[in-house]
């Protein structure tokens, strides 16, 4: 108990700074001890002088290493979109704001869950007023919210006897999206076919060809199709097919039926995220239904990240019999399919309730079968 209190005191005392001996430092301390013993035994003042020199180097080590760690301004930049199991590049910039004195031998370590993680960042010399940037890859193996609690700067300057660390509260939070994996070919084929079958062509802004017609007053001259115009000797314009109608709803139930383990949930989340990316690339307007949460239709990168963000943070929850809200959203999927929308439900586990609610959807994809 007392030992714990002492440890706690030291932890509190060293909350901003830490000190560790290097192998050279251990030898140096042993040597200092030996010289001290010799001085004590002999009473020879010249040995005391040597002892004082050895001790002064220890004190100078402390002063100079502290100087190296002061007046540093640090910025950590983490990319916005980080996917699980996919390396992302974090940039760390360190600026020395001291007007005159440089810093030497700096190493930067991230502190994650209380543990220092060496990122291999090593700055040998940072002159006064200068700054240095260094990038390093990070790999998160799990989706969800991750926190890099702080940063530890270390230096062995000036003599390499001690490693002095400065703990900086440079907290960074990152939401890691689910891992994106290539979809099985059979599934891609099915989805492509489904997309064509359920697509209802309509004129509107888009990239695909919808129709060619004669030029009317007021048409944008940029839409004139010159080849056809030349062939027919009259102005023909090109009409495009609107993409608004290429809508898809991805649904992922999160309520775990009683007696069932959510062992395929992560796989289902990953599959849903991969499908989201796939449909976004295909130009679909994407809607996500994850548990009770709904993200309405939208397109573009920003919308995709909103979807991925929701998928990154979703968690399975035990199903409650009285709570019908969990499947309310799923009940409308059949109607949406009837109106030409593509609806895909990724099943993390066999669940008759959900399956009953999802009658009429375009496709039910069991996650446990896409391993």
């Amino acid at each position, binding site marked *: 108990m007392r030992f714990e209190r002492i440890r706690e005191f030291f932890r509190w005392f060293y909350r901003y700074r830490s000190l560790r001996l290097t192998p050279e430092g251990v030898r140096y301390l042993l040597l200092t001890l030996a010289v001290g013993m010799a001085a004590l035994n*002999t*009473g020879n*003042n010249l*040995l005391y*002088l040597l002892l004082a*020199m050895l001790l002064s*180097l220890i004190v100078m080590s402390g002063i100079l290493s502290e100087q190296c760690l002061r007046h540093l301004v640090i910025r950590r930049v983490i990319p916005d979109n980080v996917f699980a199991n996919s390396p992302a590049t974090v940039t760390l910039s360190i600026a020395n704001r001291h007007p005159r004195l440089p810093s030497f*031998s700096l190493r930067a370590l991230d502190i994650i869950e209380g543990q220092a993680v060496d990122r291999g960042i090593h700055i040998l010399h940072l002159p006064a007023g200068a700054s240095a940037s260094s990038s390093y890859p990070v790999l998160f193996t799990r989706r969800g919210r991750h926190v890099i609690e702080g940063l530890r700067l270390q230096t062995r300057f000036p*003599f390499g006897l001690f490693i002095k660390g400065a703990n900086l509260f440079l907290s960074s939070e990152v939401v890691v999206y689910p891992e994106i994996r290539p979809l099985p070919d059979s599934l891609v084929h099915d989805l492509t076919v489904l997309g064509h079958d359920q697509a209802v062509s309509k004129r509107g802004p888009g990239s695909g060809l919808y129709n060619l017609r004669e030029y009317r007053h007021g048409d944008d001259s940029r839409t004139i199709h010159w080849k056809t115009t030349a062939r027919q000797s009259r102005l023909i314009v090109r009409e495009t097919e609107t993409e608004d109608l290429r809508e898809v709803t991805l649904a992922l139930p999160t309520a775990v039926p009683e007696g069932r383990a959510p062992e395929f949930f992560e796989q289902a989340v990953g599959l849903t995220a991969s499908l989201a990316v796939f449909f976004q690339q295909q130009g679909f307007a994407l809607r996500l239904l994850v548990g009770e949460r709904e993200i309405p239709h939208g397109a573009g990168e920003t919308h995709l990240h909103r979807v991925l963000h929701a998928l990154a943070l979703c968690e399975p929850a035990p199903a409650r019999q009285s709570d019908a809200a969990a499947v309310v959203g799923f009940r409308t999927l059949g109607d949406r399919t009837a109106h030409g929308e593509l609806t895909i439900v990724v099943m993390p586990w066999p669940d008759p309730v959900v399956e009953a609610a999802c009658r009429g959807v375009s496709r039910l994809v069991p996650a446990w079968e896409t391993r």
Partner: protein
Amino acid sequence: MTLERAFHFCSLLLAAVAFTGLVLTGEIPSGLAVLGLAALAVTIARTIGWGGDRLVDRLVGLPTSVWTALLVAAFVSFGIDLLLISRDILPAAVHFLILLMVVKLFHLRHRKDFLQLYAISLSELLATAALTVDLWYAGVFVAYVFAAIWTLILYHLRNESEEAHKGPSPIARPVTRQFFWTTNGIAVGSFCLTLVIFFLIPRIGTGFFQKNRTELIRTSGFSEKVDLGVIGAVKLDPTVVMRIEFPDVRGPVQNALYFRGAAYDTYDGRSWGNRSATRRTLERTPDGVFLVSTPQAAAAAESGGLRQEILIEALDTTVLFGASFVESIKGGFQIVQVDGVGGLYLPFPTSARFQYSVRSVPDRLREPDRTTESVSYPDLIRQRFLQLPDVGSRVGALAREVAGDARTPYERARAVERHLQQKYQYSLDVSTAVSASPVEDFLFTRKTGYCEHYATAMVVMLRTLGIPARLVTGFLPGVWNDFGNYYSVRQQDAHAWVEVYFPGSGWVTFDPTPSVPSAAPSLFSRVGKVVDSIRLKWDRYVVQYSFRDQMAAAKSLREGGEKVRTEVSGLLSALTRGLASAKAWLAGSARAYGWILVGGLAAGALVVGLVLVWRGRGGGARQADPRTARQVAAIQLYERMLRILEAQGLLKSPGATPLEFARQVARERGEAARYVEPLTGLYCRVRFGQAPFSSDDDRQARELLAGLQAARR
């Protein structure tokens, strides 16, 4: 110089400094000293590019088995040395260390090799500290601190570079001016801190296992039996035997001083001896003072005595010296003995220099003794101090003749003293060959001699006149050192004089030796005084520094603190009073000249505001040098090239680019182009193209510069 080369150089310099310390102790056999110095010279010369490459490369290239065999041989030699040659652990260990250092100097391959060399150098410095206490150690120590700081910093940077590059990585960056001064600043800071720590470490050392190897200084004239002529042998020896300070006196003491050592009562015609050699131990007071005379006399001495602080070297005699006549003595010793003629002794000689305090009362002749014609001496005095060998009748006749019509013993003694001072010549050029009657030789034949002859002749002459006298040996004060405020007493200041007994006054000092004019102080002697003063301080504050000094320092600090507190308190109250009167004055002025006050304050605020704005805009801020270290190195080299060319008459115009200038050089001085063009190319690549600047580039650039320098018109 690149950091890599500086690292190698500093590592070798560290070893060289420590080894120099060992050599200076004089305890190293000359063969080993030459071997060590040669190894250091060759390796340092190779590092700084002065040659020796082939030899060192050949040695470095030897297989590891050879080095292992050499190490084993060194260890075996250590065993032999310990058991058969030195028969002492310290000299044998020192010899072993030197052999290890030589082997290591040619085998510096890995990080651990350098660490081992540093450990060897520190061990050498430790051994030096055990073998000497001389002043030169201070110089070696300071040099070692500087070399150690440089070496450790460069070692660290090299390691960091290796770790950053995941492998051996020589540091090609140059030693910039900033790095140079920063490192030296760290060294100065470390040295100052060393001094602070040195004085603060509690001295609780007992010295149980200390073996002091200080060589004892041989003295003459203080043994139980002293042959006539022994002092002459040391009269040209400038070895310092003691230094004497007078805490209560500023400047040199005006009275004639005689630092009394031994006294002798019996003369056998050729040598002096002491019949009352039996010594008794002096009583020690609770505060460590040994009273030579009665407590009453000592109490009287407290008021009118002369206090001396004596730092005495390790002498081969146990005699304790002090100005005539010693009343009390205090030092770090437990026992002091006194013999029948007032000589003070330690029970055994000390092996190291030591310090003690003495309080003396000068002799004083009382008026009755000056005027009384017929004196009766106590029996004991007459038996011991009127003894005479067979010196012949001529001496007695001369004494009576010299005494002439002097009526009192005092006048007779002064007459003999005066006669000897005036009629005889001082000379050290006196044969020490055995003479049947040295006193007669001196008085009637040679008529030249030195202190012993004069003093012996006076004692013998006085005794023939029935006046008790004895011969005393000791030292004259020597030379006054203005820089340290002390007398520096050397062997050559050894002296013999006479003490004459008067019943009312006791023993009174007479000196028949004529004074020898001292040489005019030269620059050399002044420098010598400064060095000696530093040596005294070194001894006092470093070598002899003790727990007692620490306590004294603490006490004076406390007293100083109290004084400062009192002064600060007085200052604060004065300040408070001043502020109160200033406030009253301001209030009065504001009433009278309010608008001037407001205007002044507004102007002051405006000035302060402007200064702040200027500073905020970075008006006073320094701009950091955006150039990299290698660019700086390239610029330095290029500027050196421009200086060489300028000295040779080729000046680069400010508007010319480096390449234009190189073409100009080629046009105007074709032979210089082969140096200038590659240098310019290197400069442009490194400065403007961010190209690397390796140690090979650095070496090549320096060779080109040397070639350009040599290729003068």
